[in-house]
């Protein structure tokens, strides 16, 4: 009984410092209000983030699908009475012949087209032919065309392949193309349509006045430039800039509708693959050493601090390091010279995919190490103990238990690192990527460009339509990036399942 009294006393003593029933209700209401305010603050952050993301996609997609008007540099009506697509092969051949026959440099132009489009000769092959001709040798049509397995009219067989007239070249084109190919050839090389105006969908549908004004302005400008008052633009029509040729063609900075990004895509994929191959094993290895082997002495602490700080170093600084170390100091290796793989002995340069990947590898190494360390630390110690308790060596424990269980976390870090490397530009500008390259990289020792840089080059072009190409390129960049990440996500979920 006395004990109960004592305890009641104690409660009443303290409860004078705590709210009574009435105050308690107010107090709870106030605390609930506070909780609700915070809830809405958090909700607002999410909404803002979603809105930004939506605006980003909206502005890109808006630029990638537009209405355009086209100016045909040669009016199709002057070429033939019938619509061009209805002409026969013979008639299309005549159109080509007439067109190139009428212009002063026509013979040179059409010869270049035959060499490039019909024969697919490389520049060096063309040089060789020119050299032999200069040496008074005759390089015959038969020799060149049979070498490439192409058809040629018998009467041209023994003539020099570079000394034909326009009629001869036109005949060669006509022989090797079917009607559809000839039609495409005529459109591209004779009619030469140019996209001169582009409007986003909202502009086109909601500001007709501006569209009409733009058309009138452009027409006036063209009529004045070409001194031809009959010039008329086509009716505006829908044009998707996301097209298959974006990944099949190389960059063409004269015609936005033909510009492709193949070289940049291949360059990016080479670069990212090599980067992962370099950085992932090194990063995971370093993380394993730091977490499982290092005894945590002062040296380990210094290394750890440095890695943490390196993750925040601006990428341009890595670029300068890469320039000094890989491009310059190790030029013999990064140019492939040492393996006899360089792009010709005397032009050897370290500005290769390998240099870029090594630099990029250094850039993402801290990110991979830190994430791998986190993942390794999260593996429960009980697993290590169980493994050691059975007489496993350190390596067996790491390989059989620590790594498989840390894998999902390591892959998460890798996803972050890939994303960073894929979109990185500053490093590559310094290390020496070139934007006007049209030769696909063929290996680690090739010169190269990457997608983000190519997109930047497109945006800086004066002609407005290149911004539409850039928007399509950005969509492509995002698609490739998401596909790369999807692979890592699938791998991660596999490992997570295995670990349960």
């Amino acid at each position, binding site marked *: 009984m006395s004990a109960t009294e004592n305890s009641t006393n104690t409660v009443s003593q303290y409860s004078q410092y705590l709210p009574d029933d009435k105050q308690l209700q107010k107090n709870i209401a106030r605390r609930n209000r506070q909780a609700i305010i915070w809830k809405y603050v958090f909700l607002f952050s999410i909404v803002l983030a979603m809105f930004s993301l939506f605006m980003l996609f909206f502005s890109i997609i808006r630029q990638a699908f537009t209405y355009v008007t086209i100016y045909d540099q040669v009016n199709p009506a002057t070429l033939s009475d019938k619509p061009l697509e209805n002409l026969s092969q013979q008639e299309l051949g005549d159109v080509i012949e007439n067109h190139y026959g009428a212009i002063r440099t026509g013979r040179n132009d059409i010869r270049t087209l035959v060499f490039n489009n019909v024969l697919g000769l490389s520049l060096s092959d063309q040089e060789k032919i020119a050299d032999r001709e200069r040496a008074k040798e005759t390089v015959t049509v038969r020799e060149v065309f049979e070498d490439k397995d192409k058809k040629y009219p018998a009467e041209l067989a023994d003539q020099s392949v570079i000394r034909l007239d326009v009629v001869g070249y036109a005949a060669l084109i006509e022989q090797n193309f079917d009607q559809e190919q000839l039609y495409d050839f005529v459109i591209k090389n004779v009619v030469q349509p140019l996209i001169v105006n582009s409007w986003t969908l909202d502009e086109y549908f909601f500001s007709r006045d501006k569209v009409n004004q733009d058309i009138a302005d452009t027409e006036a400008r063209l009529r004045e430039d070409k001194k031809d008052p009959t010039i008329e633009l086509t009716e505006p029509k829908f044009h998707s800039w996301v097209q298959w040729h974006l990944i099949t063609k190389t960059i063409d900075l004269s015609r936005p509708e033909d510009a492709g990004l193949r070289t940049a895509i291949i360059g990016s994929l080479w670069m990212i693959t090599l980067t992962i191959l370099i950085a992932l094993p090194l990063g995971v290895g370093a993380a394993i050493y730091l977490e499982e082997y290092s005894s945590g002495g002062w040296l380990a602490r210094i290394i750890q601090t440095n890695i943490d700080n390196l993750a925040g170093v601006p990428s341009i600084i890595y670029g300068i390091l890469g320039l000094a170390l890989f491009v310059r100091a190790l030029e013999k290796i990064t140019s492939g010279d040492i393996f006899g793989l360089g792009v010709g002995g005397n032009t050897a340069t370290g500005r290769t995919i390998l240099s870029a990947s090594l630099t990029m590898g250094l850039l993402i190494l801290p990110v991979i190490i830190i994430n791998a360390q986190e993942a390794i630390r999260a593996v429960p110690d009980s697993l290590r103990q*169980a493994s050691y308790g059975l007489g496993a060596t350190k390596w067996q424990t790491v390989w059989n238990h620590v790594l498989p269980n840390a894998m999902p976390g390591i892959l998460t870090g890798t996803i972050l690192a890939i994303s960073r490397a894929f979109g990185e530009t500053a490093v590559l500008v310094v290390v020496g990527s070139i934007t006007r390259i049209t030769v696909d990289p063929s290996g680690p020792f090739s010169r190269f460009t990457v997608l983000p840089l190519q997109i930047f080059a497109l945006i800086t072009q004066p002609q407005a339509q290149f911004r539409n190409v850039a928007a399509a390129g950005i969509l492509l960049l995002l698609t490739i990036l998401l596909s790369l990440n999807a692979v890592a996500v699938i791998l991660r979920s596999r490992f997570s399942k295995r670990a349960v």
Partner: protein
Amino acid sequence: MTNPNGTSKYALEARNLHIFYSSFRAVRNVTMQIEPNKITALIGPSGCGKSTLLRSFNRMNDLVLGSHAEGEILYRGQNLYGNNVDPVEVRRRIGMVFQKPNPFPKSIFDNIAYGPRILGQRNKKILGEIVERSLRQAALWDDVKDNLKKSGLALSGGQQQRLCIARTLAVEPEIILMDEPCSALDPIATLRIEELMRELKENYTIIIVTHNMQQAARVSDYTAFMLMGNERAGELIEYDQTERIFTKPNDSRTEDYITGRFG
């Protein structure tokens, strides 16, 4: 170990053993002999160093940074803390079962086959036989024989602990160290583990750390009572047959502890 066939009257023998974590002395001057094919219980209040002592018997303490030992632990006449002793071999001969069941996140089969596999046994048929024998010894075979591919984590707590015991048995150790193996289990699962321990002592020497004095009284043949002494270092107070410790202890502190006057 240089002397794998050495013999000794005792399964293990600690001589003037001190264990340190960096500069902190966790266990002071323990000398005791572990009888073969018996169950020896280490009891004492929290922090008295009994787990540390147990973990030193198969050098699991080496995994703690900065830990080291002075004195000797003799196994087959060889000092386990000698210069030419590889802890990997010690642990393969002196197995361990932990406080919390810690099966690998793998199938039941792989859990048990892991030990033989790391020792180099790759033959599927032999591995299958080892798995079955170990599971039978651990009284788990009938529960899981149809489902060896199931994850070890899908078992109940008591089954998981028996799986861990089976895993230890699979590498055929001579001595099994058990660190409070039943503290995470319910009373029925505890009884099954105790029953299992009595069966296992036919073939194995068992050393068990327990907080549960009834458990020590029920299963063990010998009991060692430890207590935190000067500078918080654990000391061995009394070591004798379990019956003596629980009926006529020599030291008054032992009597105070087992009668529940402190601890």
